[in-house]
């Protein structure tokens, strides 16, 4: 585990206000989901999950076919698909188009994909103003931070912090009433919507048979982003594909319920191309940027390919005992929680943060709530194995390897094993008298891993007699 990962974890755990904010918010989201997937209100919830998994498996398994079908259908309605291999290509495309159309102001609706490629920073670097319009994302942008949670980006901010932020960045009088804070943001952003040249959105789904993108939201900012400016650019990972509009019956029901406990979110937009013929409003130009940025690498790994089924509902974050303690910003990349723990090493390499796949208790809550049934714990185990294989190749952690070899050798020799057991029992720290070792023993020497382990856990005291001894006595 890297020092920075460890430091961020300790910072988060030492902040009681933040701990409470994370715990309360994720707890509420869990409760809302639980009520929405209850058999009384959603009797076929498990069938929906099974179907979603089957559809995703099929689509991802034939992704080349669906990408081309999608591309043809977008073109048929007057839009254009742009394939990009990485962040640079996306930025180049947007900058090029902005320059050609003399655009200077861009409004954006929430998109994890654009977070992934730091699009705003890249655009600002070229004097293009890109304004986030989802309330939470807007606050995060004002604070120059990263989203704390996939669906609740400003989950960690208190209303007092929001008040300071608005005063500092917008020069408005300090306001601590949440309704009024929201209206301040509404007024500022409404001006931006009406003045913007380009709207950039993400896409919750790409619908192959329609050449359409689907956006799911509650605020209306995605509708404004895609309706008011003359140009709409949707930026999505290639894995967001589903084959048919009719598959939305399954995916929309699962997404809303899993994310926020809503049977349907307030707005669901199904957008297929620019304004047509006699339609009164809507964009004149429609582009869909399909991004690779490492996804084909994940696709090539048959065992972990299912990581690409994710529909970004955030349920695994809310239900993860690790996320609920260490929060979103401890994670080394934009995707946090269990899904972040499996996506980050696959996108950025296991060495980016080798401790990540190990920062899990493998309790399985994430897999249980995942609407598309991604087996996250299994993938975490695979990634742990990848980390160890990499260490092996690089000759790192020699001591650990030596220790395990010695241990394996001892285990193959029963006599030796028994003697080692007796030695360990006599050397083991004495407990608190109640059968537990609750803190590191005062041996005079510090064994860092043991101290770290015991700082969070208790160890049963060593028994006075070994199993073998008891067996011999009772036989």
């Amino acid at each position, binding site marked *: 585990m890297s020092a920075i990962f460890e430091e961020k974890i300790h910072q988060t755990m030492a902040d009681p206000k933040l701990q409470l904010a994370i715990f309360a918010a994720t707890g509420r989201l869990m409760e809302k989901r639980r009520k929405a997937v209850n058999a009384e209100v959603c009797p076929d919830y498990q069938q929906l999950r099974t179907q979603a998994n089957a559809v995703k498996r099929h689509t991802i398994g034939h992704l*080349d076919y669906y990408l081309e079908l999608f591309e043809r259908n977008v073109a048929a309605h007057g839009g254009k698909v742009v394939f990009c291999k990485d962040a640079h290509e996306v930025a180049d495309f947007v900058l090029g188009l902005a320059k050609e159309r003399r655009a200077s102001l861009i409004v954006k609706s929430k998109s994890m994909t654009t977070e992934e490629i730091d699009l705003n920073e890249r655009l600002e670097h070229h004097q293009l103003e890109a304004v986030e319009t989802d309330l939470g994302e807007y606050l995060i942008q004002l604070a120059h931070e990263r989203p704390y949670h996939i669906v609740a980006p400003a989950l960690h901010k208190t209303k007092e912090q929001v008040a300071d932020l608005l005063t500092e960045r917008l020069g408005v009088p300090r306001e601590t009433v949440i309704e009024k804070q929201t209206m301040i943001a*509404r007024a500022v952003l*409404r001006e931006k919507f009406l003045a913007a040249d380009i709207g950039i959105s993400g896409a919750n789904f790409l619908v192959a048979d329609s050449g359409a993108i689907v956006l799911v939201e509650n*605020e209306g900012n995605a509708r404004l982003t895609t309706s008011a400016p003359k140009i709409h650019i949707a930026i999505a990972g290639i894995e967001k594909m589903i084959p048919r509009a009719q598959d939305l*019956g399954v995916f*929309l029901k699962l997404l809303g319920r899993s994310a926020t406990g809503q049977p349907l979110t*307030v707005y669901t*937009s*199904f957008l297929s191309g620019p304004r047509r013929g006699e339609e009164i409003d809507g964009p004149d130009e429609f582009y869909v940027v399909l991004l690779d940025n490492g996804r084909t690498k994940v696709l090539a790994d048959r065992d972990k390919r299912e990581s690409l089924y994710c529909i970004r509902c955030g349920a695994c974050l809310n239900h993860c005992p690790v996320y609920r303690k260490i929060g979103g910003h401890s994670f080394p990349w934009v995707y946090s929680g269990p899904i972040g723990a499996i996506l980050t090493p696959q996108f950025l390499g296991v060495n980016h943060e080798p401790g990540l796949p190990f920062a899990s208790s493998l309790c399985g809550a994430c897999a249980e709530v995942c609407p598309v049934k991604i087996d996250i714990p299994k993938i975490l185990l695979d990634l742990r194995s990848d980390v160890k294989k990499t260490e092996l190749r690089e000759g790192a952690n020699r001591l650990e390897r030596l220790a395990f070899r010695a241990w394996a050798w001892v285990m193959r020799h029963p006599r030796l094993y028994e003697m080692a057991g007796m030695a360990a029992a006599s050397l083991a720290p004495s407990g608190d008298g109640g059968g537990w070792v609750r803190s590191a023993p005062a041996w005079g020497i510090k064994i860092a891993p043991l101290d770290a382990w015991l700082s969070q856990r208790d160890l049963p005291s060593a028994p006075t007699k070994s199993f073998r001894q008891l067996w011999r006595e009772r036989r």
Partner: protein
Amino acid sequence: MSRENVLHKVRTALGRSAGQPVQDSPPVYLTVPEAGVEARIDVFFERIEALAGKTHRAQSLEDARAYVERVIAGRKAIASNAPVLRQCGITALAGVESGITDGAQLRGLSASAACGITGADYALADTGTLVMLASPQEARLISLLPPVHIAVVEHERLLTGLDELLSILPHPAEQTSSMVLITGPSRTADIEQILVRGVHGPGEIHVVVV
């Protein structure tokens, strides 16, 4: 840009070749329950009210017009070109602008109006949802920019739910560039998970069934 590069990497990753056919996709999973019109309206209203939307069952076209008149209460309003609004006489109400076909004009009026009045192509009972297809009759911004949205829905357009919509409209893209499902007033809970309505879209929604 990288079209060939990305498609090539996808095919290599999957062990597929260009133009290789696909196996059948899993059959479509949609379930459409049986429900009479009256039952649909009851459920529809119950859901909308649970989301803090207002509802009205109009006994006649005149009744619908009277309700809309009470809601707009002399404020500035913009109405879409949906025939039902004209039939009800809503477009003739004082302060109501209608018959707009120019995009820039529509945008200006929508941005300054207190109320936006539209029809709805369909409504979904079990979620309390309005389905709006962009067309010469319905612009996108009328149901979005004004702080109050009033929708007049003909009762025969009320479907049981999303699955029925997708059954009768399997290819929405063939009809419109934009299909929007509206389920209650615009809302956010991004600050301390406190619910606030009307963040970007209308904070108040009225649904009249005729």
